[in-house]
């Protein structure tokens, strides 16, 4: 079933649509297009969400004036209008994006580092250590993350940090599986045996040999997973976790907007569109990179 380890499948990540061979036949152009365009889109989105609010004329997303609430789009000073308590929609969109992106990046970073480490150790050591680690990971994967998330929300109180923890329970095992599969493949290669025989210490093996070789795969997977994490963050907002209002995140904006969808559909559709475009960009980027690197 292609080059897909079943773990990537479990995470719901889609396989690459473009065969490397066809991309190669199309030549240089196709390859560049597959990576450059989405990369530019991603950079643009980041710029909008992180940099523009600092340098541009963007009003704060919270603490709006109740007198200017529920203004429609293209009102003076608020070109996307305001929400029910007077916060500027455009600003909420940008700051919301920042929150959602921060969460997704943090979760994936934790996943790569922690999950990658665990998986590599399991894959490299093998034997009962490997089996135990995998069983523990299985428990986390089989565990309905939702229960955990809601529990954290109720017990510790919802916050951006707690959302990151909750979602890490999902990304770490998934990353670990990828990392383990990649390490297992790597282990059989001759340069690894050579390094082992020459007495390389375990930490050095890990950092110097294994890490640089599994990193491309992990990164590609992480990119493809960012979309899913962002979508999951939204799902968490529906059940009470996620970024607590009034601070915006695309997830909680969608969840909040649900109740007034007939009257003010744009409260749902604006963050939805933003989320959609961002997820598509990351997916395309991840796929483009996979087609590029996979063909080597």
């Amino acid at each position, binding site marked *: 079933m292609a080059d897909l380890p079943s773990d990537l499948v479990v995470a719901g990540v889609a396989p690459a649509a473009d065969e490397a061979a066809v991309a190669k036949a199309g030549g240089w152009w196709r390859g560049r297009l597959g990576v450059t365009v989405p990369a530019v889109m991603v950079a643009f989105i980041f710029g909008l969400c992180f940099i523009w609010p600092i340098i541009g004329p963007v009003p704060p997303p919270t603490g709006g004036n109740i007198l200017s609430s529920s203004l429609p789009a293209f009102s003076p000073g608020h070109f996307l209008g305001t929400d029910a308590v007077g916060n500027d929609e455009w600003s909420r969109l940008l700051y919301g994006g920042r929150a959602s992106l921060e969460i997704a990046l943090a979760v994936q970073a934790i996943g790569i580092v922690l999950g990658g480490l665990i998986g590599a150790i399991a894959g490299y050591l093998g034997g009962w250590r490997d089996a135990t680690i995998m069983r523990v990971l299985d428990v986390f994967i089989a565990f309905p993350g939702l229960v955990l998330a809601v529990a954290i929300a109720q017990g510790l109180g919802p916050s951006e940090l707690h959302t990151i923890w909750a979602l890490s329970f999902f990304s770490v095992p998934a990353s670990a599986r990828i990392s383990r599969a990649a390490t297992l493949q790597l282990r059989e290669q001759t340069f690894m045996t050579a390094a082992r025989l020459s007495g390389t210490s375990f930490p050095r093996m890990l950092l110097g040999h294994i890490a640089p070789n599994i990193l491309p795969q992990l990164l590609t997977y992480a990119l493809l997973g960012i979309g899913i994490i962002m979508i999951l963050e939204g799902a968490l907002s529906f*059940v009470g976790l996620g970024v607590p209002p009034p601070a915006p995140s695309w997830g909680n904006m969608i969840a909040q907007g649900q109740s007034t969808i007939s009257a003010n559909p744009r409260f749902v559709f604006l963050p939805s569109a933003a989320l959609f475009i961002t997820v598509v960009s990351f997916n395309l980027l991840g796929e483009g990179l996979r087609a590029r690197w996979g063909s080597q």
Partner: protein
Amino acid sequence: MSSTSAPLSAPLAARAGRARRLASSPTLSFIVRRLLAAIPVLLGVTFLSFVVMNSLPGDAAQELLGAQATPAEIHQLEIKLGLDKPFLTRYWDWLHQAVIGHLGHSLSSGQSVASILGSDLPVTFELVGFAFVISLALAVPLALVSARKPNGVADRLSMMFSMAGLSIAPYVLALVLVYVFAVKLNVLPAIGWVPPGQSVWQNIRYLILPAVSIGLGLLCFYTRLLRADLLEQMQGEDYVVTARAKGVRPWRVLTRHALRNSLFGLITVVALNLGTLLGFTVVIEDIFGIPGIGHELLQAIDNRDIPVIEGIVFVFAVIVVLCNLAADVLYSVLDPRIRYGRPTE
């Protein structure tokens, strides 16, 4: 090379041989081993959720009595509900009842957990099943059409749409669908559920939007997966060349040869996917007001209703484990190379 068994006893001998092979077959021992390995996972999951729920502030007694209750009243109810016993004792109590199928009773409603599961699970299953049917029924023809002419017009279009479909959050899709079909066009209901016993047609009507919300993402995913697999078969496998050399038409090579071999991969993925799908189902059930297991779970967490939560978590975990197992087993059972054993000379 001889095969001179008398014609009458040949089928009997073959069946006995198959039975013997199955009993000692690697497949059976594989299943057994996996089931055994699943037990610690189930234990771990249920224990973990027990830990998590118990570390939350408040308990069922508090929830039932409300904010005005005095500590004494709460404590009394706790004793009555058995919540004062030590943590491990309570887990053990639950566990050894659960393995024989006694899942206890809801702390808030008193209803037996089994009956709660019995009424809610089928609803969720119907929803998820509906979503799967839609997605698979469409994914196969779409993938075939795409693979027929790779990078042709149909292929590019379907890849574009499937990329888009994958990138939409199911709840976003749900809200969009509700807005378009329920609010604006008013052809489909937004919220609610009608059991099939009452009216099959209405039952379907209420399920369409939620099933599509879940199913679209699945459809896109499966289409891409199947297409990739089909192309791999068509471009890389020798038996495809043989088929072409016979003069078989390309469409037939795709459907009669490549598809068979690609379906394995798809089935495995479907089984694996089932587990992770349950999480999104909860949100969809919430949006559409469908009285399924997800809805029940959310309520139970609110009420700190531990037996119900444990029951649901247990069932979820069993489903996930069984699906993973089914995926592995299906692969080996459907493949005739394994089903029919070693080659005969």
